């Protein structure tokens, strides 16, 4: 199948893992080339990608102008066609103005227990776990809003963690495949098979097996150690940190875990996460 798919998630929820799986499936189950990931499955908020697709400079565009050109870039990229699916990574809440339904074939939404997201997200933003939890609970939270300095990504309206999840799962404009990080850990073969089918990739079981092996957490960590990863923020030790589920039981205080449950209880229940 061809067409555009949004690979959506809250940050640090397995989006890059899914992108690596997609990239591997698209390249004959090859080992992930992190340097090529931004080309095979680009980020929809990346200035470099917007400039590549639209062929205009973005450095002097205002945040509002950048927000207006993003859906146009999706549309132009989708129109370039190709034989396989085009996958675009996004962390924004679903908004039909940003993600015009007629442009896309579908969306993959990747979700992870927010208690595991929090420490990783804090590390990524270089803030404390408490601050990360506070931001995850903040309605309408915007990432990367800056009018004082250059950012390689445009601002992204992420909303709270719950808003992010429900905005994608409740919209009915495009079909959504929900992938839980924990399920992907427990049954990578089964979940990747579902992913390949949703994207319309005619991948043989052997190539899915090989793609899963090529994208094991240890393999991604090793790839980052040897070649680096341009999407790692400055100052962060490594992008691929732990690759575990349930680590919050040791890493989060009771109060921190309780705060996440208080903020996101309804969505935790909906996604069958324990409370």
């Amino acid at each position, binding site marked *: 199948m061809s067409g555009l798919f949004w690979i959506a998630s809250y940050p640090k929820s397995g989006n890059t893992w899914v992108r690596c799986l997609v990239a591997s499936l698209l390249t004959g189950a090859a080992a992930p080339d992190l340097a090529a990931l931004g080309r095979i499955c680009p980020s929809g908020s990346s*200035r*470099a990608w917007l*400039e590549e697709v*639209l*062929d*205009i*400079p*973005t*450095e*002097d*565009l*205002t*945040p*509002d*102008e950048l927000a*207006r*050109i993003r859906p*146009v870039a999706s*549309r*132009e990229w989708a129109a370039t066609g190709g034989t396989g699916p085009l996958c675009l990574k996004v962390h924004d809440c679903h908004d039909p103005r940003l993600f015009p339904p007629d442009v896309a074939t579908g969306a993959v939404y990747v979700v992870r227990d927010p208690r595991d997201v929090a420490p990783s997200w804090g590390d990524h933003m270089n803030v404390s776990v408490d601050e990360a939890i506070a931001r995850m609970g903040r309605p309408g939270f915007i990432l990367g809003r800056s*009018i*004082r*300095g*250059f950012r*390689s990504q445009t601002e992204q309206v992420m909303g709270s963690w719950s808003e992010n999840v429900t905005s994608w799962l409740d919209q009915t404009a495009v079909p959504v495949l929900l992938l839980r990080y924990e399920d992907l850990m427990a049954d990578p073969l089964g979940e990747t098979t579902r992913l390949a089918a949703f994207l319309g990739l005619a991948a043989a079981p052997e190539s899915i097996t090989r793609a899963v092996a090529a994208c094991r957490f240890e393999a991604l960590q090793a790839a980052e150690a040897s070649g680096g990863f341009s999407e790692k923020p*400055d100052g962060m030790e490594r992008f691929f940190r732990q690759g575990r589920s349930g680590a919050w039981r040791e890493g989060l205080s009771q109060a921190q875990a309780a705060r996440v449950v208080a903020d996101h209880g309804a969505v935790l229940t909906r996604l069958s996460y324990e409370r």
Partner: protein
Amino acid sequence: MTEDYQLCGWRVRSDLPLPELRPWIGPADALPDVTVIHGPVPDRLESVALPGTYRMVGTDGSVLLRIEGLVRILVQGGTTITVDILRREATEAWRLFLLGSGLGFLCHQRGLFPLHAASLRIGGRMVAVAGHTGIGKSTLALELTRRGHGLLSDDVTVLRMLPGAGAEVLPAFPRLKLWRDTMDALGVDASGLPRVREDMEKYDLRPDAGFDPAPGPLGGVVVLREGPGPVLSAVSAAAAVPLLQGFVFRPRVALHLGRQAGLFAQAAAIARAVPVYRLERPKRFDTLVAAAALIEEAFPS
């Protein structure tokens, strides 16, 4: 009311004020090389060779740039630029696109080699500092101007091939666009400076003390890259050819104007004639002084 300005050695006759540029001081009887017309520009081209929502190339080689709600710019024949200002901002932001992309398209139509680079006069030589958006060209250029080197151009360095060997720099205008974070880190006072856009704390600096509009031979190219360092290393002529091609300003338009072979030959000629260096540094302000010193060492007076 038209004014005559100089840009890259050309006489530019403009309906619209272009305060970034110096007034024309060449021969009074010289014909204008480039004309800037303030007038209506269509939303799209009639016969399109390279489509695009915001940038189109026509089958006749004209290039249309649309910045939605702000300006439409049509560049034709390497000589005529029509500017349709859709919204007046106090900052006259339309000029950013005329003197940026517009200049790049004009260069491609004229068969020149526009490099995505700032350029400065360092140790008596004209040096281009190339790099992709956001890598810190302007920041490094500011540091170099503070060390007494004259700024020749900011984002686009226009190169013209010399008969025989090498290329010359056609100085554009001395302007740097700098973010507030950068200015704070470098201790530059932003108060009283104009912004480039109303909604952004990005400022328009005009360090024109060392600007000289006279073209002169290109002395070398420094390509910026993020990495450990700062460390400056020479690039072989063979490796410099694709490297320089990778920093052609607005390359897709060039491709559709049939400039591929021409740009390759020009990149090869530049790589043969002048030293090309790669300057790697972490994108941190505390590596800036050392990076500037490395460039000075490579181009001693």
